[in-house]
């Protein structure tokens, strides 16, 4: 039997709350984090999309001015979330040579990169900040978290677009099972609400353009869904070898029972319409967790609210869970948070862990007319999950054909 791995600390900064208690309370209530963007660049560039789901608590309220100055916003979010998760874990002493980091991002320091480009063009090379490279590199969040915690058992950065945050847990689980670490700070961070990524995602027709009603724009599974809503933020989870957690008398939220990552090898952006890669990921994750389809009571779905994306996930769930798929409480929390890209899997993992721990499924908002081709049991009002031994899944899929699934079990 591989080492059992448990989750002992949670952190988040999101469009529906700047910490885990606020985010979780809002996710059960059902609120939208989407708002019109107040920045002047929306008008200046005449962006076709004028809203996004921005974080509720600026990192500058949590970090010192000097800390924030040396970090891209994506790294700021990672440090904010990981500090909360670390405090929450209650770890006081740990062998730093056995403490690793697996902190993902989809895009990395895009604000820093493009600000530096503007500076170069407007003011010349002398004015490009010497901190530009460490701030823009995609391993910046992982490196900053490693530095902050003194974690020396490796600082990893899974990059698989919107599957990145979930893949971080896959990497973390492997590090502990293989004996390379006892504790891993896992997570994902993204800060890409910048005019260029908005223009680029809009160019590929991926974003909702419901500019007049931002809070109604993210509507997974609804017949009127027309694209995702850009989100930002970070999620962080302290995962730990069970014996390590027990030895220090830790509060254990849940078991990270299994993970899986597959690739579609089908198309660079379009999901395989049969959901074959996702099906393999779901089956492999359940096998890895030694769980049966019938054990699954809850799924935090990837469900981004795009016309083409939501259905193949249903196809895959049906293929992996069989007729039991209709007995599973499915939450599409991007309806509230928007799509946090490389951070989404980490934030949704935090919600999935709390769903198991508190036995409550967060709600899906804006589901007015459910797509008849996706007959899932979608949670639209707070719902209790069953007592007894239960398992939940969280799915993430990314451009490039990346499929990542985690399995969370009660302890």
């Amino acid at each position, binding site marked *: 039997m591989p080492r059992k791995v448990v989750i002992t600390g949670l952190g988040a900064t999101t469009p529906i709350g700047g910490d885990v208690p606020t985010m979780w309370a809002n996710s059960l209530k059902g609120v939208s984090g989407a708002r019109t963007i107040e920045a002047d660049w929306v008008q200046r560039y005449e962006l076709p999309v004028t809203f996004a789901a921005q974080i509720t608590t600026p990192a500058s309220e949590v970090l010192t001015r*000097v800390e924030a100055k040396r970090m891209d916003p994506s790294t700021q979010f990672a440090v904010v979330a990981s500090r909360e998760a670390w405090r929450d874990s209650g770890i006081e002493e740990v062998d730093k040579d056995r403490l690793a980091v697996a902190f993902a991002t989809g895009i990395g320091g895009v604000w820093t990169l493009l600000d530096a480009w503007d500076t170069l063009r407007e003011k010349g090379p002398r004015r490009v900040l*010497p*901190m530009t490279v460490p701030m823009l590199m995609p391993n910046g969040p992982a490196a900053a978290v490693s530095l902050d915690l003194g974690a020396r058992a490796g600082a990893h950065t899974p990059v698989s677009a919107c599957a990145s945050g979930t893949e971080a847990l896959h990497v973390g689980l492997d590090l502990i099972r293989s004996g390379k670490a006892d504790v891993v700070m896992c997570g994902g961070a993204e800060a890409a609400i910048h005019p260029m990524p908005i223009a680029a995602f809009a160019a590929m027709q991926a974003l909702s353009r419901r500019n007049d009603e931002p809070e109604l724009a993210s509507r997974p599974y609804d017949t009127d869904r027309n694209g995702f809503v850009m989100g930002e933020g970070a999620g962080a989870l302290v995962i730990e070898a069970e014996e390590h957690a027990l030895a220090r008398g830790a509060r254990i939220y849940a078991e990270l029972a299994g993970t899986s990552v597959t690739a579609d090898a089908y198309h660079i952006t379009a999901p395989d319409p049969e959901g074959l890669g996702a099906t393999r990921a779901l089956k492999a994750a359940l096998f890895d967790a030694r769980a049966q389809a019938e054990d699954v009571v809850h799924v935090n779905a990837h469900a981004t609210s795009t016309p083409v994306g939501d259905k193949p996930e249903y196809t895959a769930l049906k293929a992996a869970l069989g007729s039991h798929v209709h007995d599973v409480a499915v939450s599409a929390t991007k309806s509230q948070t928007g799509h946090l890209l490389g951070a989404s899997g980490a934030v949704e993992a935090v919600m999935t862990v709390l769903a198991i721990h508190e036995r409550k499924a967060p709600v899906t908002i804006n589901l007015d007319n459910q797509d008849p081709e996706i007959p899932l049991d979608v949670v639209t009002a707070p719902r209790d999950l069953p007592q007894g031994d239960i398992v939940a899944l969280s799915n993430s899929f990314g451009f490039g054909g990346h499929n990542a699934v985690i399995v969370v079990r009660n302890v």
Partner: protein
Amino acid sequence: MASNEEILSGLAEIVNEETGLAPESVEMDKSFTDDLDIDSISMMTIVVNAEEKFGVRIPDEEVKNLKTVGDAVNFISGAQA
């Protein structure tokens, strides 16, 4: 043309902005590395900000000679003359 006192206080503001060090800790005889714990990346940021603030050019090869705050103040003062 700024006096040495004005250059020192301007430099102290730049150091404070970059590192969070109290401006009054930035004194003429303090070493940037040994006393103020300023690394090379912060030093380059301080240099570029000082160039803009005081309207001078501090060549990269000169930066390694600026060991103390006083060295920097004197260089800037000389460059302005």
